[in-house]
């Protein structure tokens, strides 16, 4: 990963399960506020993070749970969040884009999570190496 979290980043180590979502949310929300983001920015970052974590729980760990590290920090007025898991490699290019046009009767329900992440964050970067999956999300000008 070309971007490493600074040593001063807020850090949470947790087992990725649906039950962990509320702890992760509380942690992320606390980070956002500590780093100076307002409620509006925090809400949308929480949504992007929730989608990313749900993806890790369902796909990287296929519902079996596994280790997850979350690091948040700020550089100038940009907000960074880095997620690291040891699950199956995630290849975002294999996820079909969501269906945003069809009538409800034929609307497929997949792909929305990744779409939300990309819509809500300014940068969404996936990588995989010997240590697992890394996902970096950046919100530019999140503060001020």
């Amino acid at each position, binding site marked *: 990963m070309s971007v490493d979290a600074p040593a001063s980043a807020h850090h949470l180590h947790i087992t990725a399960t649906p039950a962990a979502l509320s702890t992760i949310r509380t942690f992320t929300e606390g980070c956002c506020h500590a780093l100076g983001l307002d409620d509006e920015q925090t809400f949308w970052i929480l949504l992007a993070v929730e989608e990313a974590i749900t993806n890790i729980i369902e796909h990287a760990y296929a519902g079996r749970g596994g280790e997850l590290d979350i690091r948040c920090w700020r550089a100038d007025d940009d907000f960074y969040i880095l997620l690291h898991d040891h699950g199956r490699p995630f290849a975002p290019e294999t996820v079909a884009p969501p269906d945003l*046009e069809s009538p*409800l009767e034929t609307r497929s329900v997949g792909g929305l999570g990744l779409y939300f992440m990309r819509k809500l964050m300014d940068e969404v970067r996936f990588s995989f190496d010997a240590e697992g999956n890394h996902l970096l999300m950046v919100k530019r000008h999140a503060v001020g």
Partner: protein
Amino acid sequence: MSNDSLTIEHQPLKRCDLFRIRGRVDGETAPRLEQALRRVLENGRYKLVLNLAEVTFLSSAGLRVLITIAKECRRFNRGNLYLAAPNQRVQQVLELAGLDELFKTFPTEVEAVGNF
């Protein structure tokens, strides 16, 4: 913002079933919402109104439930799923997903119920 787990209040009415949903609909709680709605469908009732005024968070997991259940309601023209009183955040999430035009939405639950 954090301590707002999901609560679901179900009120069977003559014309339809009204659900008042409060709190978060996310990856953790969406299965519970689906279960509650599905229980009504299993009783042969396909006209649902979901009051979303007090939903504080809605993720794609929640949207998947809304889409899945609405599809089942509409099959064979036997019913529908109406949304009532979505707050600004919920409305913004629906718009983000391109779903705001697909669900029939009413400013109040009374109007939604009255349309069945």
